[in-house]
Structure formats: C-alpha cells, structure tokens
C-alpha cells in the first residue's frame, strides 16, 4: 500500500483524494441524522450562510448543505449502479462476442457499434419522457445503463480476440481446464484491470447523463441529484436573484467530482502503463 502510494503519479494521488472526499460526503456524512432537505419551508427561505446553515437556504426554505449531500449521495449511487450494470453486461457481451466468433460475433458487433455511434441523449429523452415522474433511482439507472454497456463490450471483445490466440490459453486447455474455467481464470484477470478504469469512466458518464436529463426536466421529480438541484435553482431563477450559494455549490461539486474522477482514471491508466513498462 505504501509502495503503491510512492509509485503513484500526481494525477492519481489528486484523483484519489478528491474522489475519496466525495465518497466521504456521499456515503458517510450522508448518514449523519438530518432534517429531510426536500421538504419545503423547513426553515426560512433565502437565508445567507451561517453556522446553522453552512450554505444558506433556498427560496423554498430548504437547507442547501443537506440538499447537496443528498444530491452527491444519489448521483454517486446512480453512477455506481449504471457503471456496475454497464461493466458486467459489457464484459459478458464482449467475451461472448470475442469467444463465439462467426455469426453471433458479427451480429453482436453491429448492435454494439450502433449503440456506440448513435447519439444516446435523444433516445434517453424518449425513454424517460415515457415514464415521466414515476421513476425510482433504480429504474433511472436501468435506463441509463442501456448505453453504458456498448463501449466496454467493444473493448473487451478486442481484448478477448487478442487473448484467445495467446499460447497460455492453449496451455490452460491442455492442462485440463474447461472453457468456462479458461474464461474466468485466464481471461478475466486481464479484463478486470481494464474494467476498473472503464468502471470509473462509466460512473462519470452516467452522472453526466442523469444531470443532462434533469436539466430537461426528465429526471424523477422527487430525486435529489446534482442535476436536479441545478435545475431547481435555475427554475426558481436563482441566477437572477443572485443566490450564488444555491446554484453555486451543485455546480462546483459537479465540476470537482468530475475532475477528480477523471484524474483518477488517467492517473490510474498512467500508473498501469508505467507498471507494465518495467
């Protein structure tokens, strides 16, 4: 662990620190007992920051700080669920495609490529607008996952294709391993290293998609997410009213979270390639 930290590059360190900070806010601070920030008029509206309300309150009398904490929690949760589904499905489809070859592979490839090329947002708009308002985090995540599997599957397929002709796969078979065992113990370890960086990427993309849908008013109306928080502030004219402590924190949080995750991804990739280089 200490050695890892010593060898880690600056980006990886910065990424880890920022991401850890957000995980702390979203999954530790979140559980400190607090008033439900969604309810209107819990406090007096438009309060400036104070000890009691570190980021002030909204026009509707909600506490911005706790609103932000819940938003970070929910956004991260959506991101993680989508990334998990996307990675698992992507790895599965990619391995299937790469190993089966022939017609199955070709069909899967064309479908995968379609999902990579086609613009995802309009289709997500269509899907979410059909279930406007009546969704949960999980359903939202499932919808977002429709576009989260294609890229990893493409990558895993090419990884599988390059691995399957490698001699150690043949050695494994001649050592009595069955096809499933070969996939699980020989291919998967290689796929996992790659999947970790893809997982973070997918988290990032999912949070961004959810926020985009929120700005369109298509995220569940009762879901406190970073995107919805920004959207609510925009709807209530926080910009015109110069309520910077209302619209500012979710924007700053989103920016920081994204930069943090991105630093983590590129830092991790650099770290891997450096490790391989030696």
């Amino acid at each position: 662990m200490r050695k890892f930290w010593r060898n880690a590059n600056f980006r990886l360190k910065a990424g880890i620190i920022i991401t850890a900070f957000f995980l702390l806010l979203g999954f530790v601070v979140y559980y400190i007992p607090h008033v439900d920030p969604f309810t209107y008029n819990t406090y007096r509206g438009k309060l400036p920051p104070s000890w009691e309300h570190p980021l002030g309150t909204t026009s509707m009398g909600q506490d911005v700080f706790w609103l932000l904490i819940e938003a970070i929690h929910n956004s991260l949760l959506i991101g993680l669920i989508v990334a998990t589904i996307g990675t698992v499905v992507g790895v599965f489809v990619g391995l299937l495609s790469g190993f089966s070859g022939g017609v199955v592979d070709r069909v899967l490839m064309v479908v995968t490529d379609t999902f990579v090329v086609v613009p995802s947002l309009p289709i997500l708009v269509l899907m979410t607008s059909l279930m406007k308002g009546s969704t949960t985090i999980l359903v939202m995540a499932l919808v977002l996952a429709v576009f989260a599997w294609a890229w990893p599957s493409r990558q895993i397929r090419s990884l599988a294709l390059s691995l399957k002709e490698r001699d150690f796969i043949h050695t494994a078979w001649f050592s009595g391993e069955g096809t499933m065992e070969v996939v699980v113990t020989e291919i998967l370890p290689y796929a996992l290293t790659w999947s970790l960086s893809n997982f973070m990427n997918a988290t990032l993309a999912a949070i961004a998609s959810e926020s985009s849908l929120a700005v369109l008013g298509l995220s569940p109306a009762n879901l406190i997410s970073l995107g919805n928080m920004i959207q609510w502030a925009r709807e209530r004219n926080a910009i015109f009213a110069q309520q910077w402590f209302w619209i500012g924190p979710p924007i700053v949080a989103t920016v920081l979270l994204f930069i943090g995750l991105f630093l983590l991804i590129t830092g991790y990739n650099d770290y891997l390639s450096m490790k391989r280089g030696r």
Partner: protein
Amino acid sequence: MKFTKYLGLRLLTWALTIWIGVTFIFFVPRMFPSDPVETMIGQIQARAGQMDPLQMEMLRRSLRVQFGLEGSLLEQYLSFLWKGLLQWDFGPSLMSYPTPVGDIIRTYLPYTLILTMTSTILAWLVGNFIGLQAGFRKDRRSSKIMEGIAICIYPIPYFIVALILQIVFAYILGWFPLQSTIYTFGGFGPFIRSLIRASILPALSLLLVSTGWWIISMKSLSSTVAEEDFVLFARYRGIPSGKIGRSYVMRNSIITQITALAMSLGGAFNGSIMTEIIFGYPGVGGLIQKAVLRSDYNMILGCITISIVAISTATLIVDLIYPLIDPRIRYS
C-alpha cells in the same frame, strides 16, 4: 478495386446502424405501459372539459393513425420504416398541429448542424494541433500548462460549462443576451449578425469541452507514437525534429484521431442538444425539449430518427476520409 470493397462494407454497416437504431426506438415506446394517445386525450379533456363519447372515439381513432399506432405491430413497424425512414414523414406535430413534423425539423436542423459541425471541426483541428505540440515536446512548460487546462475542462459535462459561461458572460458581464434570438426577417445582414451573436456562447461551450478532449487524447497518442520504432529510427537517421514531428508523428497520429472523430460525433451531438437548451438556441435540441414538455411523440421520434441518420452519415463521411490518408487501407 480494393477501395470499392472498403466502401461497400462501410455502406453496409452504415445502413445496419441506422436500421438497428431506428428499430430500437420504434420498439422502446411500445414496451412502456404508458399510451401516448390516452395521455393526449387526457390532456385534451383537461383543457376542453368532458367530451361526447362518440366524438372521443373518433378522436382516439384519428390520433392512433397520426401516432402510427394503427394495425398490427409488424404493419406499424413496416410503415414506420417506409414512411419515417425513407420519406421522412413522421406525421403531424401535435404541438403545432397540423404542421408535419418533417417540415418543422427541416427549419431547425440547419442551425444545429452549423453549430455542431463548426465547433466539432474547429475543436478537432485546434485540439489536435495543441495536443501534438504537447505530446511531441513534452518537456516544454507551455505543453504542460495546456494539458493541465485541458484536464480541468474536459471532464465537466457540456451543460455545466454552458451554465458557467452563461452566468459569467451573459449575466455578470452582460456581453451576450441570456437567451438567443435570431432575426429570421429583416434582411440578410441582421440575420447573420444575430446568428453569430446567438451562436458564440453555445459554440464556445462546445469548443471548450471537445478541444480539451482532443488535446488530451492527441497528447497521449502522439507521445506514444513518438516512441515507436519508426520515429526512433528517423531520429537515428539525423532527420531534423521538426520534420519528424510533421511527417512521422503527426501523420501517424492523425489517422487514429480521424477514427476517434467518427466515434465522437454522437457525443458532440448530445453536447449540442444540452447547450442549445441552456442558451435557448433554436436548434433540434430546443425542439426536443419543447416536444418533451408538450408530449409531442411524433416530434420526438422524428428528431431522434433524423439525428440517428445524420450522425451515422457524418460518421460514414469521416470514415471515408480515412483511406485517403492511410495507404494501408488503400492498397491492402
């Protein structure tokens, strides 16, 4: 001979992509329990009050026809493919009844195309130029600063960048209007002037994000290429480093970046939808938002179909440039 084969294959995947995409968006709404016709009737009832049952039945019928919900699933599907995909006829728009959806999209599409294309191409050129400098001359201070800036801007979602630009330039500094207005009447001069004025902030937000991406990817790509055997061997041949940068590193990295450009178009389109909405720019993005608010499903389906066709075609065009630059595709 070899090229026609490449072309044929590429055209085939192009057609398949569009077909799969369109089939997907045809079946998805039909998998959801909500029925757009009933939603629509509910809305009309809410507005017009109780209606005569016979009249309502007729309305329901005609709405089903207009939504393309008449007949068996297969018939609906075939007619959707035939009318929508081949004739661009998506039925009437329900928010500006009875104007056909196709006509409305036709007036909005050029704005989006201009915005997306200029910003994408500009971002690709500028980003790759800076990225090449940063990758080939890694140790320069300016390279590191450029990369640092790119890393801090690229990961931010399009609409956040748009929002920040709006707050800073339109609200605080007041240099631009908060919402775009384009004067379609009043002559060519005012039209162009208002178009440029309305496009600058949306274009800038698209540019910032995607330029960031091209800088980052070109930097890592060109620094990898710069360590390839043929670049090292070129150095050992005593070729001046400027020449190596141009004819060895750049030309070989650009090939990869063209493929990447083709892959990125969908994302760029998503981005322009978001910025259009933030700035109220009169493009397809704004149209989609309005259609969503008014539950105009014909319009949504039309916009999506057209965007799938547009993006796939743009991807196809970019891919066709590829063999012009890479002789390995041309000759083998």
